[in-house]
């Protein structure tokens, strides 16, 4: 195991890289929760709706714990959570838009939520003490997300032609932005690997491919041929695009926070 990271020993580059890593994990968790919450109504059964509702709560709880880590690197979590515009979100691009159908959410549950878990696994094995202690419980909760994702993925893959086609298309659409995010190999990502804070994008990508290879093959998607999309923006820690504005307003709680009187 790596020696515990001393935050005060980080130079400017290391500090901003750790900020970015925490932010991109927290923002992705927050957006994953939003995408689950989109399906509180309209899921194929009441039980499925209850499950995604609980999973949305899990994701927001995880996001809150991750945002709280920003205090260690000199940022105010409250400001970060409530005052940033959408273009400042470092969330994985695969969650920018809502999913039009259940197959889209199942593909996201399978590919995106799993990728975030793989990134968190790398973070939890690293040298940052807060990640070592807080992330394992998140990963334990995520095991239920992964179970449900796999069960639904198999079910849809073995279902109607329409369901298979939607699942195939959604998977192919989600993989490029996910691979770009998880496999990021820019200066900031490398700084975190060198510091022992997390694992390399290449190794985490291989873990994801290994976990999903057999599953995506069910709908004739060869995950080994999937490639990251282009346009990675090192400053924004994400690919092109931004979360849709309506989602960000919901994240910030704009409409109803305006009712609060200081």
């Amino acid at each position, binding site marked *: 195991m790596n020696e515990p990271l001393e935050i005060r020993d980080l130079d400017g580059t290391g500090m901003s890289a750790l900020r970015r890593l925490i932010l991109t994990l927290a923002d992705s968790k927050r957006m994953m929760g939003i995408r689950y919450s989109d399906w509180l109504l309209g899921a194929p059964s009441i*039980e499925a709706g*209850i499950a995604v509702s*609980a*999973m949305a709560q899990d994701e927001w709880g995880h996001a809150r714990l991750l945002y709280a880590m920003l205090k260690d690197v000199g940022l105010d979590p409250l400001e970060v959570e409530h005052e940033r515009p959408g273009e400042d979100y470092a969330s994985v691009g695969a969650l920018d838009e809502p999913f039009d159908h259940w197959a889209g959410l199942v593909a996201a549950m399978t590919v995106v939520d799993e990728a975030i878990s793989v990134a968190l696994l790398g973070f939890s094995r690293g040298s940052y003490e807060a990640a070592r202690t807080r992330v394992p419980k998140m990963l334990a909760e995520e095991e*239920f997300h992964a*179970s*449900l994702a796999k*069960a*639904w993925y198999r*079910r849809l893959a073995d279902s109607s032609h329409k369901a298979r086609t939607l699942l195939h298309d959604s998977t192919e659409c989600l993989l490029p932005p996910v691979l770009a995010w998880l496999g990021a190999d820019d200066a900031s990502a490398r700084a975190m690997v060198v510091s022992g804070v997390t694992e390399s994008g290449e190794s985490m990508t291989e873990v994801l491919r290994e976990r999903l290879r057999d599953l995506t093959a069910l709908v004739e998607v060869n995950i080994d041929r999937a490639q990251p999309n282009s346009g990675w923006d090192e400053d924004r820690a994400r690919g092109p695009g931004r979360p849709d504005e309506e989602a960000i307003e919901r994240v910030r709680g704009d409409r109803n926070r305006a009712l609060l009187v200081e």
Partner: protein
Amino acid sequence: MLERVYDVFARKHRGDQLAHIGYVDALDDEMARVYAWKTYDEEHWFEMCVIRRTAIIPVNRQDGPFTGLTGEGE
């Protein structure tokens, strides 16, 4: 949909008896596990398990929900 009924049993502490706490409808065992865990999450359970209702063998009654005659979607 070919959903089955699964009965949910749980106990709060290691020494407690398993108690029937409810049911879920699910397409397969794996979904039933997750649905049960996420639906009946009001307690910090020590143990939870699900069983297909059709696997329950009635002992003294031939009516009611556990006889395999009701509650199945297939």
